[in-house]
């Protein structure tokens, strides 16, 4: 049937719809490219102004009033330790909270309140967390303006985000795994511990890493609680302290600075040449953030494949 042959050809309405569909592809692609190119532009701009300052010295020097001598060393230590503290203090609590919500909580109004509260906390401005950290950790618990106080403050700040991400991850573990374990005579916790958590971990990690990327760039809250800008030592326990709990603890109680504060300090500086330092700092920070994101993406893709 030749007529049938003809009719299967795209004609009239279908041809138009197909055309619209194909054109739309480029619109959507355009939007995507826009986002990516903004990032590219930001990167370009930053690298353009900061690349000249990037060197090993930049990474290993202490701050200085001479732009070319100033470095990120203590800030990098500070950021590293702060993030470790943040991760180790927020993740267990966040996961615990998520587990409680998804696995143990009685389905009542309290739970609704907890959930809404978490969503709300995720939107509380960081400066309020700063004030809270100052009031609670620095003052009330007398932690002083230490790594611990800073880490805990950031932990409070990212717990809500992490909980929400973890909840999502736990919810995506098929209920059949949990039921399977319970039906074998496992207790609720055994089921969670052996079957739910291991499968939620990738999701939890992705969420956590994204939350951490936020914490890494946080400035205002840390300035509020007295994160320093000039420091002439490496904050946090150093290698030798790992053997000695007392020293380790003392290390955690040291004052600190972090990369964003350092960047902020440089941008505030009246001297032009410090702008390049700021850009170089941003490059370092962004490289770290990118690496984290990459890690998250790798974990997620692996997860998706299964």
């Amino acid at each position, binding site marked *: 049937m030749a007529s049938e042959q003809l009719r299967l050809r795209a004609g009239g309405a279908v041809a138009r719809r197909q055309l619209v569909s194909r054109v739309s592809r480029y619109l959507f692609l355009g939007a995507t490219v826009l986002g990516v190119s903004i990032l590219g532009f930001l990167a370009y701009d930053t690298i353009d102004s900061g690349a000249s300052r990037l060197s090993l010295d930049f990474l290993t020097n202490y701050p200085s009033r001479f732009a070319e001598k100033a470095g990120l060393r203590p800030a990098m230590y500070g950021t590293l330790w702060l993030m470790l503290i943040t991760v180790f203090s927020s993740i267990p609590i966040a996961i615990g909270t998520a587990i409680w919500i998804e696995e143990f909580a009685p389905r009542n109004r309290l739970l609704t309140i907890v959930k809404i509260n978490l969503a709300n906390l995720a939107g509380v401005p960081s400066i309020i967390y700063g004030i809270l950290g100052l009031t609670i950790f620095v003052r009330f618990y007398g932690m002083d303006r230490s790594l611990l106080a800073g880490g805990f403050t950031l932990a409070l700040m990212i717990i809500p985000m992490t909980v929400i991400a973890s909840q999502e991850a736990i919810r995506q573990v098929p209920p059949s795994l949990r039921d399977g374990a319970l039906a074998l005579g496992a207790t609720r916790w055994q089921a969670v511990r052996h079957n739910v958590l291991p499968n939620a971990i990738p999701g939890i990690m992705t969420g956590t890493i994204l939350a951490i990327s936020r914490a890494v760039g946080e400035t205002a809250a840390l300035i509020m609680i*007295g994160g320093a800008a000039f420091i002439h030592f490496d904050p946090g326990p150093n290698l030798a302290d790992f053997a000695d709990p007392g020293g380790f603890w003392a290390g955690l109680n040291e*004052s600190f600075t972090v990369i964003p504060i350092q960047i902020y300090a440089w941008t*505030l500086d009246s001297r032009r040449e410090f702008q390049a330092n700021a850009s170089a700092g941003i490059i370092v920070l962004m490289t770290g953030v990118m690496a984290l994101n990459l890690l998250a993406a790798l974990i997620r893709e692996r997860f998706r494949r299964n």
Partner: protein
Amino acid sequence: DDSGKGGEIDIDGSSTVYPITAAVAEDFHAVAGDVRVNVAFSGTGGGLEVFCAGETHLSNASRPIEQDELDACAENGINDVLEIQVGLDALTVMVHPDNDFADCLTIEQLHEIFRTGGAANWSAVDASFPDQPIALYYPGTDSGTFDYFVEAIIKDVDEAANHRGDGTASEDDNVLAVGIGGDGDSIGYFGFAYFQDAGQSLKAVSVDGGEGCVAPSFDSALDGSYPLSRPLFIYTRESSLAEHPENPMLRFLEFYLDNATALVAEVGYVSLPADTLQEQQARIEPYLP
């Protein structure tokens, strides 16, 4: 851990004073590596608050401590606040570089421009000026610079007057520079240090304090002929100097004042005149060994 051998000095406060103190701390480290000096900058107010709470040893301030703050200190049993002036910040009034009429303004004209209900157009300031709206840029309203300007210009002319609020305020001098440089009708003021560096793109206005137009410069500020310069301070406690002779704070302050003249200028502020500096040194004299 190698901390605390020589002691630790926690400093917070003004972001204006921060570069000076940080520079001092940097050099101090070279001579006293066993003492840790940490400098933060949560602002004069924030710094004094934690200082009065006993959480820092020293506080940078770009304005004198207020009575409220002294009261707060007293509440925490801190009755021995010691004020030391470390330098001057000359305040620069600036306009857009294309502005060719406002070369010199009197205190009164500045007052007229920045007071509440003041001039809306340049022509209202001086008939010879064009009839264009004025756009204002000034530092964050609770910064020391702002306070100083209010004291030195607004209240000076009319105690009842207020600084107007319909301009753009920013904590960040960078931001102000961008603002003034980007706006043909602009006028604004901020710290001299910043102007020195970023100011090429802006035009500084001479100020007439009654003794003729004086352009802002190190020299005019140092010799006192430039009318708009404000003192910068550090605050500490007498007790932290008195405790024992070898204490780090004393060493630090001594070093600070010994090197102030060079370092203050180096980071872009105006050093104290010699006599003023001696007055400050005299304040710690009693504690020196």
